[in-house]
């Protein structure tokens, strides 16, 4: 399988106060593939993911050094317009967070802010992206009801549709199925496998089986350090580092 770099992380260090969350990470994330970041909880997976769209900015006492190149631009450069970076990356959280508005307004929230006002165009966007998230059939008759009334699984798909509606290039998922029931998780995974033809997808997970089902490329972090990264078959079948072997066998977790 061939990999074309989409995001390039170079010597990334992140500190929260005196604690170093990421230690000198250098890794290339391939485009139009699913990259899975694995590792035990609290080892910096989420920090790495959030540094891609600079959501670690508002944390007090955070210090960042190194580079994250995205389309050749260093997104950590303070001069970069952060809203432009973020709209290129959709983000799913562990728990779905619908916005406090209707289903329809959730999907049009991003497009409206970025300047689309035409009602017919917005209608089209809502239908198109709800279909992409395979939610349309379930909600098409109640688009103007509160999003909070949906089930968790539906909410997470709504969040996916909402993220896709701003036409990102990348989808980031921070353990996006961990709050969902098995059936809903499966639907989300299915969406990822179909969407990877059009989007670069980066997912954080600590579920090894999920990583195996989804990953084209794997990044293994352990306590802020990048232990190993490479194509999924190499990491899972033939890991080079002892620690990776032990993690994949389930000896350490």
């Amino acid at each position: 399988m061939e990999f074309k770099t989409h995001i390039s992380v170079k010597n990334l260090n992140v500190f929260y106060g005196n604690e170093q969350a990421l230690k000198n990470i250098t890794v290339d994330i391939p485009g139009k593939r699913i990259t899975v970041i694995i590792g035990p909880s609290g080892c910096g997976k989420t920090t790495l993911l959030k540094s891609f769209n600079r959501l670690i900015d508002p944390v007090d006492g955070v210090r960042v050094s190194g580079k994250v190149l995205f389309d050749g631009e260093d997104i950590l450069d303070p001069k970069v317009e952060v809203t432009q970076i973020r709209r290129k990356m959709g983000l799913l959280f562990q728990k779905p967070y619908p916005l406090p508005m209707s289903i329809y307004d959730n999907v049009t929230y991003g497009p409206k802010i970025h300047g689309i006002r035409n009602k017919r165009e917005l209608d089209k966007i809502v239908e198109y992206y709800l279909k992409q998230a395979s939610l349309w059939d379930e909600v098409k008759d109640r688009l103007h009801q509160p999003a909070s009334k949906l089930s968790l699984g539906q909410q997470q798909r709504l969040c996916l549709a909402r993220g896709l509606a701003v036409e990102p290039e990348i989808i980031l998922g921070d353990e996006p199925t961990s709050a969902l029931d098995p059936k809903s998780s499966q639907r989300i995974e299915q969406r990822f496998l179909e969407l990877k033809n059009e989007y670069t997808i980066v997912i954080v997970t600590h579920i090894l089986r999920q990583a195996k089902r989804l990953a084209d490329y794997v990044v293994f972090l352990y306590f802020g350090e990048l232990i190993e990264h490479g194509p999924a078959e190499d990491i899972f079948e033939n890991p080079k580092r002892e620690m990776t072997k032990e993690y994949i066998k389930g000896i350490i977790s």
Partner: protein
Amino acid sequence: MDRRKIEESIFKWLMFTSTLIIIFSLVLILATVIVKGMPALNGAMITQTPKGGYYLGREGGVLNAIVGSLYLAGGATFLAVLISLPVVLYLNVYARRGSRLVAFTRFSLDVLWGVPSIIYGAFGFTIMLFFGLRASLLGGIIAVSLLILPIMSRAMDEVVRMVPEELLQASYALGTTRFETALKVVVRQTLPGILTAILIAFGRGIGDAASVILTAGFTDNIPYSLFRPVATLPLAIFFQLGTPFPEVQQRAYASALILTVVILIISMVSRILTRRFTKHIVK
């Protein structure tokens, strides 16, 4: 009986009595106001301003104070919202989490909350002197808005603080600015709480006497300008109770009843509004 059982029953008894005292105080206050005020309450009380000799027991009503209080508390609430909302959004959306300025601002608001209202009156009076203002509606509005500002801000702060960080991030992740997020997500999510905070502050403002005694003055007329003195219900009650005539004193209770009913209506409206706006809230 063993010690723990006795402990348990004493504590139960204590809790029960305390709860009863709360309910009883409310009932007693309402009953006093109603029983003493009802006989003096008539159409004239709420539709007329005081005629000559009102405070000697002759014709008229307290319309001046009813309208005055609504003007004053309304104006003060409006002014306080203009300041509270930006403060609260700054504390919770713009400022970095854990910043010292945030902690210090919250501390300042708590201290301001504890400042007695007569101090706000005196402070407002000094400001008025500085600007060459006489006792007026504007002066009263300024003093009362200072009084209710910390109450409103902290009440709003408590609800806005509950907004999960992830909800903000979900909005940022779509490429929105903090301002867009604050206005479209945070305010919507916390609207019931914000409305409640506003109405609590209004209720506190309309009932306060000490802050307006120096700043708003008193008049038998309905004010037609921000620079004219204005009557308020708490002061009307105070003046009427201070007369030696029983029938005027009874009118004080009628005025108190009117004030209570105004506050009751406001809290009922706030309940209804709160229910209406909770529809979209994300839990």
